[in-house]
């Protein structure tokens, strides 16, 4: 298998950089420098939710070209290369499999409904993690700081209830 050969290559050459996840400092530096370069060299503010809006506008024909859509296309490519050597299609989704008793229908509906909350909430809050928590907070926007505290508070409550009530 070609996939196995690629996997063996990365293991033999001991390129742990490509096989393991990174310490938060290096990963944070990478994300920060990407966002900074985008602002410095392209004059753009990092944000993903806006890309979803533009993609939606593209579907209705009111926008025909947007840098954000191209940016979104790059994201899965990054995920693909980051997992090179151990890449495979997977139906698993961490502890969510336990939350949904391994039922793919419950899992799909669960993720779809959460997605609606994410999309609607991110637009209402004026941005998601990248636009509000990273760029907004870095630029000292009061609204972004409040939104980030809101993300954290709601997320902490929901995650703790999930693990206590469902598991």
């Amino acid at each position: 298998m070609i996939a196995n050969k690629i996997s063996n290559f990365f293991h033999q050459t001991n390129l742990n950089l490509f096989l393991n996840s990174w310490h938060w400092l290096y990963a944070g530096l990478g994300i920060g420098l990407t966002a900074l370069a985008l602002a410095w060299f392209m004059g753009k503010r990092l944000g993903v939710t806006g890309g979803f809006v533009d993609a939606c506008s593209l579907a209705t024909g009111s926008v025909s070209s947007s840098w954000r859509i191209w940016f979104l296309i790059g994201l899965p490519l990054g995920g693909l290369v980051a997992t090179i050597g151990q890449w495979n299609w997977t139906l698993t989704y961490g502890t969510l499999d336990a939350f949904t008793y391994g039922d793919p229908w419950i899992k799909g509906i669960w993720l779809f409904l959460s997605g609606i909350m994410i999309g609607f909430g991110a637009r209402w809050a004026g941005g998601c993690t990248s636009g509000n928590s990273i760029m907004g907070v870095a630029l000292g926007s009061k609204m972004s700081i409040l939104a980030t505290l809101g993300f954290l508070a709601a997320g902490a409550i929901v995650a703790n209830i999930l693990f206590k009530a469902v598991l």
Partner: protein
Amino acid sequence: MAIARKVKTSPKPRKAAKVIVKSKSKKVSASLSLSSVFVFILFGFFFGFFLSKARATDYDSIQDMFRFKDFQLYGVIGTAILVVAAGLFLTHRFKKPTLSGKALDWQPLKFEPTRLIGALLFGAGWALAGSCPGTVLTQLGEGKIFAVFTIAGIAVGVWAFQKWQPKDSNNSTC
């Protein structure tokens, strides 16, 4: 040699082509050149790559963050904020907000406490789905097929908000 080079890079035919493209479709407000398309894909690529390496695309990693069991993602987000803040502070100090000379495309959000409701909704969704709009697309590249359900949900949520508050967006009529 110099003359040959000049002839080769003569901008005349290109300009003519651009004019034709513009007159063809009036919808295009800011059509991107092929090279900037490539650069933006590259930025997305790096963002996705680092998100994946940060473990931000892992369901249990998000849960560990929200349950205060793992410092990893707080460290990642905190470092990213510091890098961006320090970098932009430096260039603003020297009165050059961006190195390309263009102004940074940024209008701070008005402080409206009702937006906190949206933030709470987003935070709850983030914890339930274990992903946010950026990481869920990266998950798709990692081969996590179930991410398509979250992506579909986000699209519906974004569309619904647009129907409810059409004026909130700056440039779209979705």
